[in-house]
């Protein structure tokens, strides 16, 4: 059994390591550092950890001010609450492409018991629409940790989305994360599933279910949602003619939206978008919510089979 760890834990560890390496890293917090794990940095570097209280606009604005003085400024809160400061992020950080990294945890239905208010299902759509902003979502603990270091190297605005829930660790310590690069985890000739975040794990489980039914699916981890790994996505679409996207986010404007936009202009093909179907979530265990809202491995396998049927119908015509 692989280790189970949350990507927010990877963020916390990566941030702490980064702080040890780079004295210009600062963190601005809005009273959720214990949950987002930014606090790990704060405990070791209290002089570089600025608390703003429960005030997300102040957090983002202050981080921006620090960044123009040569700091690599991280700030973190829950994804939904970050949206309260969305226009701050737009007008100060994105507009000027400042070196501010907004790391949002408790994203998606995987947030679980807290319910609708904390289950951001629209954040990727919102941040992806901003010029200059890169949008990242790690699939596991190791990728989250590596991502923090890559973010520090990237001089500019970024949104990084992590999850509360533990998922299997699929990468080893030698994993080399690169912004803008997708990662093929499994290869199959029938269909390709582009997945992100917690849904990479669900897709890997779906791979096994499909395999036992004689269906081969490629599983690709898309941890950079903007900019997309265009070449990889177009090539795999061409190879399979059956594209499925999987994300713990609304089917509107997220990974599924981004890939649909890309393919519609480059290689029009049916795209099956698995995600939250234009609705809000509710309280429950993440696994229960994934079942109910159609995000579980079982649902992915069903949707892949439906997509394959559609593909064969197209070929027949």
């Amino acid at each position: 059994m692989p280790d189970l760890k949350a990507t927010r834990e990877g963020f916390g560890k990566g941030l702490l390591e980064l702080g040890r390496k780079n004295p210009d890293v600062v963190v601005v917090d809005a009273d959720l550092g214990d949950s987002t794990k930014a606090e790990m940095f704060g405990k070791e570097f209290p002089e570089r950890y600025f608390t703003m209280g429960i005030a997300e606009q102040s957090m983002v604005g202050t981080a921006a001010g620090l960044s123009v003085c040569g700091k690599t400024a991280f700030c973190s809160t829950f994804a939904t609450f970050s949206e309260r400061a969305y226009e701050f992020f737009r007008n100060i950080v994105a507009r000027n492409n400042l070196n501010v990294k907004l790391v949002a945890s408790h994203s998606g239905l995987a947030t679980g018991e807290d319910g609708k208010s904390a289950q951001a299902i629209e954040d990727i759509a919102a941040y992806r629409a901003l010029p200059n902003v890169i949008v990242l979502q790690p699939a596991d603990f190791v990728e989250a940790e590596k991502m923090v270091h890559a973010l520090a190297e990237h001089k500019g605005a970024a949104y990084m989305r992590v999850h509360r829930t533990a998922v299997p660790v699929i990468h080893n310590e030698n994993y080399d994360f690169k912004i803008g690069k997708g990662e093929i985890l499994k290869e199959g000739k029938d269909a390709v599933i582009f997945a992100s975040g917690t849904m990479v794990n669900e897709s890997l489980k779906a791979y096994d279910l499909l395999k036992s039914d004689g269906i081969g699916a490629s599983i690709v981890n898309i941890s950079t949602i903007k900019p997309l790994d265009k070449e990889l996505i177009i090539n795999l679409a061409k190879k399979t003619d059956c594209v499925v996207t999987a994300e713990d986010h609304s089917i509107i404007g997220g990974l599924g939206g981004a890939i649909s936009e890309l393919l519609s202009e480059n290689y029009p093909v049916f795209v099956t978008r698995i995600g939250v179907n234009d609705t809000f979530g509710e309280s429950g265990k993440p696994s229960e919510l994934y079942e109910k809202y159609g995000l579980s491995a079982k649902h992915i396998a069903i949707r892949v089979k439906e997509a394959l049927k559609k593909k064969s119908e197209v070929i027949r015509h």
Partner: protein
Amino acid sequence: MDSKKILELKRIANDIRKESIIMTHRAQSGHPGGSLSEADILAALYFYKLRINPKNPKDENRDRFVLSKGHASPGYYAALAMRGFFPKKELETFRKLGGLQGHPELKHAGVDFAGGSLGQGICFANGLALAGKLDKKSYRVYAVIGDGEAQEGAVWEAALAAAYHRLDNLVVILDKNQVQETGKTADVMNIDPAAAKWKAFGFEVLEIDGHDTKQIVEALDRAESVKGKPVMIVANTIKGKGVSFMELNYKFHGKAPDDEQFRKAMEELEKIEGSLN
């Protein structure tokens, strides 16, 4: 400060006002009212207080200035040009394609904060001040906010944080010009008693006549001696100051003068100029 220097600052403020009228008239767009109210404050900052070098606008030890009420860009650009950050000729490009942007942008020399959305500059200023403390630099941070702007909740988030972090390298100046886009500030959403509020939030508060250059200069000097807390200078001003038909007239918050109004406005400002000799 001697009376000669005071008079010089007053003349500069009047020039900022004239340029603001010329720029908005030429562009037939922009915000004259708030530019006229902030002119005396900008003159004192840019020609007396700020330790800045137009030849090295990004000097890391410079004092920072944040125009949080970014719509008052005509007055701001005029001050920057007059101080030598860019040629005065560039003021002619205000709001034109490829020229000086409607609201300040970091690409314009001397601009430390890209305003345009209210309530943000003061949060940004906190970041500048925190960085100064962290790096043990002696630069100071000045931010001008509007009284209408003080209706934004983020202003008070920033006020809490500035006091909590004991940012005594931060001076916030409230250009309390009494009028906002749709009417009198007291009618739209009253922010008074402003001085008492900032005091309660933990600021050292100095209240002055924001058109009295001597008072502005003295307040800026006094602010430097305050330790352990940020300073708020409540500058009581008049929106549209210097142009009779613009004074306290909300219609000139975001409306440029037409040809006839331009002629009258310039006539009045030139008359003031004559009185300052």
